[in-house]
């Protein structure tokens, strides 16, 4: 190390607290606008990728953004429901096919997504272990959901009660895990996938109990007439579907009226998509169709605008901080006049003394900028995971 560099280093090392504070200030000034833009940019890419892979969504009329966020990212409150028969209507047009979604329920940690096997093909979800659900009450876990619940094929997860004090509500359903998906880096990783019928079972539209027509215990039946059997409260509903009791599960009501939160629609071609959109233009209709990419573009336009203001604010604060850092250096020079004078008196070259001082400032600035660059690289490297965690999965 040269003598000049050594002297600069000794000064910075001796005043290490001041040095670290200055380096941290420079690092933050440089990094914040860059990091913020990287994160916003990456978030936009993540959000748009999911939206662009979902051509159209049909849902109950209401907030379009809420419909998209809930159906694509399983976030926000569940939108109002539409009837299952809407799926038939879509497919009867011949313009595309639909995949039903029911995202109203959760386990303790994860959203439960009631759907069909088409969803796995549509999202290109691959099994890491086990198999896809094939029977009522079975579920397939996304990679993160399985890791969080520490469960794999052969284990169980339980649906969470809808309301803490809903004493008239349905019992939580114990579901058997039959498969775990490979990680995809999308919201699917956190989901618990069940068949749409299982989702309706969680709601209580289907239930199972012992066959009362052959009940061995007469206490289970209150009354019997020609058309119906009135069960007593002693009849316990099953809270788990097993191969032994699956035959006892049955639906009440017309399946066409059963609820969905959304239908993912994949038109056969662009023209079909336009025709489908036109079909739902009627504002009086209780159902709406949205193109998620358009909704997300609008959202991101707002996010970028806000991000721009935040960046501007950060840069203004940065400029003020840089001015303060400059002032600190100038004040430091004032305080060190005697030291500088001493070095000159004992024969120090002006150029060497100036170089020592410049090297001190340069070291702080360079270290700050380098750290900011490292942080920016790390942010860029980890931004996908980070934004998924923060934006998509929070």
């Amino acid at each position, binding site marked *: 190390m040269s003598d000049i560099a050594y002297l600069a280093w000794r000064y910075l090392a001796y005043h290490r607290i001041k040095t670290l504070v200055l380096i941290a200030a420079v690092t933050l000034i440089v990094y914040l606008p860059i990091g913020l833009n990287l994160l916003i940019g990456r978030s936009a890419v993540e959000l748009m990728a999911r939206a662009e892979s979902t051509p159209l969504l049909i849902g109950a009329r209401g907030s379009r953004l809420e419909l998209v966020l809930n159906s694509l990212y399983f976030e926000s409150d569940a939108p109002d429901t539409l009837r299952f028969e809407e799926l038939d209507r879509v497919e009867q047009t011949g313009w595309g096919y639909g995949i039903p979604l029911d995202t109203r329920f959760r386990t303790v940690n994860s959203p439960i997504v009631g759907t069909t096997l088409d969803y796995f093909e549509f999202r290109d979800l691959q099994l890491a272990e086990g198999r896809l659900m094939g029977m009522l009450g079975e579920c397939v876990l996304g990679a993160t959901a399985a890791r969080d619940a520490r469960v794999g094929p052969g284990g169980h997860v339980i649906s969470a009660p809808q309301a803490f004090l809903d004493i008239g509500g349905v019992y939580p359903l114990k579901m058997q895990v039959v498969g775990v998906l490979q990680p995809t880096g999308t919201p699917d990783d956190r989901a618990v996938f069940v068949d749409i019928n299982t989702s309706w079972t969680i709601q209580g539209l289907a239930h199972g109990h012992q066959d009362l027509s052959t009940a061995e215990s007469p206490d289970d039946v209150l009354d019997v007439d020609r058309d119906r059997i009135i069960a007593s409260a002693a009849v316990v509903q099953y809270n788990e579907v097993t191969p032994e009791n699956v035959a006892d599960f049955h639906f009440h009501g017309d399946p066409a009226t059963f609820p969905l939160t959304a239908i993912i629609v994949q038109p056969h071609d662009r023209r079909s998509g336009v025709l489908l959109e036109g079909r739902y233009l009627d504002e009086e209709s209780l159902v709406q169709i949205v193109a998620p990419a358009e909704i997300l573009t609008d959202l991101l336009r707002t996010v970028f605008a806000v991000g721009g203001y935040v960046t501007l604010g950060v840069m203004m604060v940065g400029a003020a901080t840089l001015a303060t850092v400059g002032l600190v250096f100038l004040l430091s020079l004032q305080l060190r006049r005697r030291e500088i004078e001493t*070095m000159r008196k004992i024969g120090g070259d002006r150029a060497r*003394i100036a170089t020592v001082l410049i090297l001190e400032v340069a070291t702080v600035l360079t270290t700050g900028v380098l750290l900011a660059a490292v942080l920016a690289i790390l942010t860029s490297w980890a931004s996908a995971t980070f934004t998924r965690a923060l934006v998509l999965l929070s």
Partner: protein
Amino acid sequence: MIRIRDLQFRYEHSDFSLLVPRWEVSPGARLAMIGPSGCGKTTLLSLIAGILVPGSGSIVVDDHELVSLSDAARRHLRVRSIGLVFQEFELLEHLNVLDNILLPCRISGALRLDRSMRQRAERLADQVGIRDKLRRYVRRLSQGERQRVAICRALLTTPRLLLCDEPTGNLDTKNKQHVLDILDEYVGQTQATLVTVTHDHEILDRFDQVLDFSQFHVGSDEAL
């Protein structure tokens, strides 16, 4: 050897002025300069060291006419041939004792910091009794120890002229005698010239000559 002829000096933006018509210090002399505060003793030391440049006149140090030397040449002469000791020690607090002693080598392009220079620094520290404190920061030293560090720094290049500005001004009696012993020993060994500014009349018997500064003209511009 120091020889001054018709020296005139005044600070910018000040009415202080100094006039030295003729003054000589022979090689190997031990000279103490006394006089009231503000009479120009420190200014004269700075002129002899080449830190300040006179408005007119001549200053010759070891056959070098300072007035005709460039700023760089004066610095080189200072760092090689003149040792400076200050009343306030003027040590750098962010350097340890060894680095403070070696500072002239690091800060001047005229010297090279090599093994022999380090060995000399350690030897000097040994001679003045601070060898065991070479790695300590100077703020952890006593006043007397700090002045010994400053003396080691001044003696690093074995200067032929030693200029001391009240070197015992901040020291107690014991440390005062210790510092003077060190300076005496150095001058005795090297036949260097010692010029010391002091207010302390108790130490004047340690010097060969005592110069009452009032013989030089010090006053306002008008007086010059």
